[in-house]
């Protein structure tokens, strides 16, 4: 097990360098960002040259990359165009998005798995058909439609919540955005759990457990659910990274100043430092989440062991 973890951590190194290099190149292809800084007017050449020097844009790309990576290991992610260190932007943005992601994951787990178990045990019944239909609708409607609709109904028409999240972004403010962000994944979790439960419900070990006279509750939670959750855990684990990076739409709709917002600003302003910094951290989170998922397998199913 220990060796497996070490091997996985070592594998992260090339992925880390490869991903950052790719992002670095991609942002650089878009051209010289300095021209955008002076608005509609042309930057005067002297100032443009000074700014380029300040942000290290006057050197060849490979050199910029090396300098950048050198700095990253000392925790220096460079400076955004508004003069703020990127590390400060991260300190502001990541906690907010993390909270939003946690709210979303919470909904996925609680609602998704509950509905999945419910429908898996009642295949073909009206509940099952109803939930299946509902998940189909949720999956097929784009997030921004759900988001804008909920924002309009709950925020403007009924006045239950504030349509825009305040800069503090407290947990209670994040409930609706979290639900919107979770919606599509939630539907997948439901369907995944349902299929898995339905399949395992006919398995020998479940029949044996029943035959032993175990209470139904215990059969479902200890035996059936534990085995059925393996694919679901994989999905949710991979979803953590996807949710953090993919929150751009939701964050924009609800005015959440998180990772998605900073990334969007970074891309529009072609701010290499911001984009690469944020993506680097996202890559790390994604890799760690995947590692966590793999380790959870062993906990869920003792037969799975890593050499």
């Amino acid at each position: 097990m220990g060796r497996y973890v070490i091997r996985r951590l070592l594998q992260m190194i090339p992925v880390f360098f490869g991903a950052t290099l790719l992002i670095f190149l991609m942002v650089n292809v878009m051209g010289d960002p300095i021209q955008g800084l002076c608005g509609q007017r042309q930057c005067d050449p002297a100032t443009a040259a000074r700014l380029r020097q300040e942000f290290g844009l006057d050197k060849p790309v490979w050199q910029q990359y090396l300098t950048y990576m050198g700095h990253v290991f000392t925790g220096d992610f460079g400076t955004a165009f508004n003069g703020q260190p990127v590390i400060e932007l991260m300190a502001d943005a990541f906690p907010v998005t993390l909270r939003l992601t946690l709210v979303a994951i919470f909904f996925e787990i609680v609602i998704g798995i509950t509905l999945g178990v419910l429908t898996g045990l009642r295949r073909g019944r009206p509940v099952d058909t109803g939930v299946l239909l509902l998940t189909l609708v949720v999956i097929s409607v784009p997030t921004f439609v759900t988001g804008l609709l909920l924002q309009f109904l709950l925020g403007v028409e009924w006045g239950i919540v504030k349509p825009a999240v305040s800069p503090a972004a407290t947990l209670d403010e994040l409930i609706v955005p979290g639900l919107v962000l979770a919606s599509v994944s939630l539907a997948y979790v439901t369907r995944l759990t349902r299929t898995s439960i339905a399949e395992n419900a006919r398995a020998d070990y479940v029949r044996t457990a029943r035959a032993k006279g175990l209470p139904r509750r215990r059969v479902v939670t200890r035996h059936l659910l534990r085995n059925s959750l393996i694919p679901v855990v994989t999905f949710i684990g991979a979803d953590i990274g996807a949710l953090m990076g993919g929150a751009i739409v939701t964050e924009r709709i609800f005015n959440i100043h998180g990772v998605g917002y900073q990334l969007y600003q970074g891309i529009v302003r072609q701010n290499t430092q911001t984009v690469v910094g944020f993506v680097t951290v996202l890559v790390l989170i994604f890799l760690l989440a995947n590692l966590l998922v793999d380790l959870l397998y062993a906990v869920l199913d003792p037969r799975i062991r890593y050499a």
Partner: protein
Amino acid sequence: MAALLLTATACGGGGGTAQGVVSASWGDPANPLEPANTNEVQGGKVMDMIFRGLKRYDPRTGRAQDMLAERIETTDSTTFAVTVRDGWTFSNGEKVTARSFVDAWNYGADLRNNQRNAYFFGYIEGYDKVHPDSGEPTATTLSGLTVTGERTFTVRLSQKFSTWPDTLGYAAFAPLPRAFFDDHAAWLKKPIGNGPYTVDSYARGSAMSLRTRDDYPGPDRARNSGVDLIVYTDNNTAYTALLSGNLDLVDDVPAAQLRNVHKDLPGRYINTPAGIIQTLAFPYYDPAWNTPDGAKLRTGLSRAIDRAQITQTIFRDTRTPAKDWTSPVLGTDGGFSPTLCGDACVHDPAEARRLVAEGGGIPGGRMTITYNADTGSHKEWVDAVCNSINNALGQDSACVGNPVGTFADFRNQITQSKMSGPFRAGWQMDYPLIQNFLQPLYYTNASSNDGKWSNKDFDRLVDQANAESDPQAAVRTFQQAEGVLRDQMGAIPLWYQNGSAGYSPRVSHVALNPFSVPVYNEITVS
């Protein structure tokens, strides 16, 4: 500690807006917030609240009026003697003196400080020493600036510029306190100015709380107790927050909502002209577009565009068809003329077809209009303009749009002279002078002459106008120069842009100034 306690109690109201405080939408400023570094609207809002300069543009008429200036005198349109009014202080108690201005201007002009608005000091003598086009600066102060007393200083310009004092209302010319130079980083975290508001707290990228200064000496005291600027990631969200009563003021009504705005905000929607004009510029560095008969071709294209229909259907009347190359906010005294462009800006497909043919036709039979696709609704109107041209010429694909991904890339291609056809050009005035609409854009090799248009007669008339000591004569000469621009159709004027804003029933006396920035200090809260 006292300040901390005060802040704590002020915000302790349970999350709602404090008594008498206006909450307004804001965008994340792209550059650090300092006077000579702020060149876009969002940062400009803050500058307008926390700073007052020698002059101030009247929020209604746009006319430059004395603010901190007691007198600005000149005999030769080159040397100006400035007297600063007594009794003004920065919000930290420091007196505003002649030195506050001279130090600030020297700082803004110095190449070493990377100030994006440095060119504003370009008319002052010695600018080429502190801000050379290449190489290191050889001086740290502008030789044209001399402090002559506690409240007096003189400015020597490197050329005649009679209306120069009227440019001093721009934020770049604001005075700076010593605190700015002593601890620059701390100042940027919490700017200190001499205006009617002070910065109470500033969370970069998300919100800024401004509070009214009790000891503000100026005549334009704030009529509310403060303004909370809140960054919105999307103007649609800000609009939704306004509708639900969680926000008082939105100064950028999203295009998609214009259809409902009168129903949503009965009597609380403002749509007034601002000093912004959109034009189509041409790449004169491309021989195909710089032919002897080119003026006819360009005039023909101008007559092919149905401005009235486009401003009505696409912009829902938040744009006004252009009738000259300036803006209505100048007023007819200031140089705006509703008749200057005349027939050349009137839609007439038959005439357009004739002129284009006489002008040698579109180079290569096909042209593109380049624009940036990341902001605004540029795609919609570019397609409509092309449609107009195609209809007039009776050719399906004579004109097509050419989107560029980001604004930075678009600017890049322009500065590298890579345009192969007409491209979108917008101009937001720095100060309400006809000079600002003509010289930076069309004078040979001027800073924003993106199409590299060049005309000797035009240049001569601009020089002549700048040397004119009578402001009215100067305006008339500038209009003659504009006539040259029209005859050559150096750039096709499209429309003037309006500022639009919506507000909640909680506030009143909301207005936009000619820069389409809300006049925050006049807003009252009920």
